């Protein structure tokens, strides 16, 4: 089975204190550490496991700046066979539709049975790239997948829906599957493991290689314009009650009642 995994390099923000950049359009990434998008990490692991079970190759692909190469190296260390890096300054600011179109251009002429990617990315949270790529290629797709079983040219996938319901879907190959976190336990990637794949060649593709014009990519082509980004206002939301325990309890009960909490 020829599997392609789409992986994205994102800033690690779970425990960071975020600051808005000077333009007010994004977060300040200077002091942030970059890493593989958590959902994509599950996708890489799932691809490697499918290859271990059914044979074939795993190719990992990303679109991003020079630093995004670390994500590819990490995936190679996890067991991916090949890596493709879509890297061009012109790509900066592309929306999910453009990214999907560029991926489609790369994959259209290659033999691919299955494309895996994370449900969403932790930075933009659009959850669109995988689905739009399926549309571009004219393939079937399944999102929010927590289990993948293969029987011949058909996949049976489990989708995680609301309220713990689970849907089982049959999906003919080729197809795009977006993977939900927790589908597996991704293996640990050691520093030595990454060092070992340092010498592996990564296929570099730029604007010219893809045969698209500058006006078709980047912020210029984007259907989305991010006007501003701001941190939620936290002032005035808290009131500190002072006094004896009895006073505080009394005041608290009054406040809750006034807000309609106690009737």
């Amino acid at each position: 089975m020829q599997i392609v995994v789409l992986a994205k390099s994102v800033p690690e923000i779970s425990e960071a204190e975020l600051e808005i950049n000077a333009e007010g359009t994004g977060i300040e990434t200077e002091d942030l550490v970059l890493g593989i998008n958590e959902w994509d990490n599950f996708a890489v692991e799932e691809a490697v496991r499918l290859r271990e079970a059914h044979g074939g190759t795993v190719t990992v692909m990303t679109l991003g700046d020079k630093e995004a190469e670390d994500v590819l190296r990490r995936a190679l260390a996890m067991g991916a066979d090949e890596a493709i890096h879509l890297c061009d300054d012109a790509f900066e600011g592309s929306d999910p539709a453009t990214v999907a179109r560029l991926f489609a251009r790369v994959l259209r002429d290659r033999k691919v049975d299955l494309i895996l990617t994370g449900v969403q990315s932790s930075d933009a949270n659009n959850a669109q790239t995988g689905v739009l790529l399926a549309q571009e290629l004219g393939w079937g797709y399944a999102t929010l997948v927590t289990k993948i079983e293969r029987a011949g040219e058909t996949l049976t996938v489990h989708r995680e829906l609301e309220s713990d319901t689970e849907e089982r879907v049959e999906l003919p190959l080729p197809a795009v599957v977006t993977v939900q976190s927790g589908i597996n336990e991704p293996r640990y990637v050691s520093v030595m493991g990454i060092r070992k794949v340092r010498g592996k060649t990564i296929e570099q593709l730029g604007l010219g290689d893809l045969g698209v014009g500058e006006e078709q990519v980047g912020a210029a082509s984007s259907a989305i314009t991010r006007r501003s980004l701001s941190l939620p206002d936290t002032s005035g939301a808290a009131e500190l009650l002072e006094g004896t325990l009895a006073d505080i309890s009394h005041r608290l009960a009054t406040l809750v009642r006034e807000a309609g909490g106690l009737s």
Partner: protein
Amino acid sequence: MVPSRPAYWEIEPIWLFYALAAVAVLVFGAGVARRVVGWRRGRAQLVLPPVGRGLEAVLRDGLLGARLFRGDVSAGLMHLALMWGFIGLFIGTVTVAVDHYLVGFLTGRVYIGFSIAMEVCGLLLLIGVLWALVRRVVQRVPRLSCTADDFVVPIWLLALGLSGFGLEGARLVAQEPAWASYSFVGHAMAGAWPEGERALTAYRALWWGHAVASLGLVAYLPWSKLMHALLAPATLFARDAIRTATSGDEEVVRFGRHQLLHGDACVRCGRCDDVCPSTGAGEPLSPRACVQASRRAVTTAATLVAQSWYCTTCGACAWACPLSITPIDTIAQARRGLIEDGAHVPPQLAETLERLHKYDNPWVAKKGQKGAWQDRSANPAQAELLYFVGCTTALDTRAQGIARALTAVLDRCGLAFTTLGKKEPCCGDIARRVGELGLFEEHRDKTEKLFDAHGVVELVTSSPHCWDTLAHAYPGERRAAHYTQLLARLLEDGRLTFAGKLDSRVTFHDPCYLGRHNGVVDEPRRVIRATGAELVEMEPHGEASLCCGGGGGRMWQELPEQGQLAQRRIRQAVATGAEILITACPLCLIMLEDARKTSGLEDRIEVRDLTELVGRALEV
């Protein structure tokens, strides 16, 4: 007539004996060859210690059995009797062969002396073997394993001893030598035999029985746990050998040859399981099972996958092993293999390693937080002595007390020192202990570079873990000390003096990487006594100390079936009646402080770092 004993007296045909001997030697050879072939599957990675030191270990720990008495005097005496009986009889057999085939000298008084010595050795062997069987069958010492081999070996030795004395008795009756009474055991048994021709028949039967049993034992030896008799000199000799392993090694997942040899030398006595803090707390780890599993050569054997992550690397197993086998090394090697394989790394450990990799500390997903404990302006930028605070002491709110107390104490002593503040990197100890060698090397190289840039000549650490790594795993020529050593030195120089006396009864928990791994046992005690506090000892203490459970990366892990390692220790501390439990390691401090709370002993005992005790005594 001159006393002597003719060889093969009244025995026919002798060629049969030689034929049997040849078969025994062949089987013996095949057994040894099988083991050697097994070892060759491992990696050669050993740098042996100086010959003198190695031989000293063989003599002291092997022939004199010094290590056999650690924690179990009864077992030590039993084994010493058995071993010396066995060795003596072996030497006796060789002596008889030399006398018969090369130079005859066993006559007259020499023969009498030899005869008495053999009686004593035979008795020792019988006492040892019977004692061993009593321990296994009657006393049922829990740690002893009970496989077929564990019974075959002593019963075989018993049969050998009894048949030996039996045939001697029958021979004395048939031969009637004038010096029979010197063979006092056989002589005493002589009464059991009939006179004349029937004694001769019994003698012949017993002779052949004894011969077959002896040769059989030779053949069986390399296939049994008796193999340790041959391998012990090697394992003891190589105790202080350096085991090289670097991340650049392609075959890191394979065991080293010495580890496979350890697997073959192990007699499953279970002393390691007995002292292991994890085993003792009911966790699934068994150092013995790990060593036994290492025979399979591959680090990802099922036992090792299931058990390796429980190890705190406290080293009690290696300390307790009479053969100087090092289960801790076997587990460390297994961890390296598991890290490279990647699939069996516990999720929380993987997160910790990612955090170490990205943020240079195991605690917070943020850089540049390590100066936060300093509630005073920055230290002088240049000083020969660097206080290496360490991740835990710098970042954990409880452990930060160590840093504050130590800086205040050093200031009081008028000692100039500096810290790296928020630039201080992780020394790499955690990565090293969990088997992430590549990450350790990154940390090491980065830290070395920083030390060079700051012209650091001398280091002092809060944590025995950082100290162990900086002192033993860094190539640079710097003097590194744990603060207990520094304080003891200041005490000696008269720079650290106490005006008043603390009026407290305290006990001291030896951190594993201070006491057991590095032999620093007296220094902290000297400092404690200098404060005027009354020191009472816990059992166990010193090099035998019981681990708090925080080492080997355990501090940053949650494992299934996790036991309460530190609670065992805090109960031992409470049992001494001390008011304060002193330790000298941030990990011990956190673990024991937690255990004090979780076991409801908050009112019974206080947990302090030694720096805090000294700070209190100095009123700084």
